[in-house]
């Protein structure tokens, strides 16, 4: 038709889901997802919408270019929620794998930056 879009419609985003759990590591996962969003490395999206099978959130996630799930503890609720909803192809970052222990982690800038750096590395690595 010769018409070109100048807007960002149809642009598939990188979506970031955080477990945002009640524990200190859940808070760390949440803060990392928000920081990554502010840095433009992806867009934090609502994991509760996946659990609730909210149609707009499901369809947007299906259309995402990349998905990153960040879990604070080894229960891996973010990963399991996505899998239960039928999403298989996503990047997973577990803070426990980085040595951050539930109940023993302080939300300090150094630890947060470590998580952000690792998430950034994984996002760059995965096509």
């Amino acid at each position: 038709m010769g018409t070109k879009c100048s807007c960002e419609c149809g642009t598939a985003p990188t979506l970031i889901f955080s477990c945002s759990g009640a524990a200190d590591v859940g808070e760390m996962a949440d803060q990392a997802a928000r920081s990554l969003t502010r840095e433009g490395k992806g867009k934090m999206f609502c994991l509760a919408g996946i659990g609730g099978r909210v149609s707009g959130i499901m369809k947007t996630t299906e259309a995402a270019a990349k998905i990153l799930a960040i879990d604070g503890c080894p229960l891996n609720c973010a990963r399991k929620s996505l899998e239960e909803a039928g999403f298989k192809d996503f990047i997973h970052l577990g803070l426990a794998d980085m040595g951050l222990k539930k109940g023993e982690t302080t939300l300090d800038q150094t630890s947060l930056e470590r998580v952000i750096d690792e998430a950034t590395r994984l996002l760059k690595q995965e096509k």
Partner: protein
Amino acid sequence: MKEIKVLGPGCPKCEQLKKNVEQAVAASGVECNIEKITDMLKMSEYGIMITPALVVDGEVKSVGKLLSPDDIAEFLK
């Protein structure tokens, strides 16, 4: 009556989706109310992050796709 909403900022792709919806509705004979939503805040209420999006009776059926009238007709059954 079916409630159909086309969500998009108003670019050619979004406008074409609305035209395709109108075409599908006319061909189906199903009574529908078609609304175009361009307000970003209203769009965010549907949990979408990619446009154009098509909402039928409150359910998001597609995002980021320019559906053909035939594709849309499937949602009118």
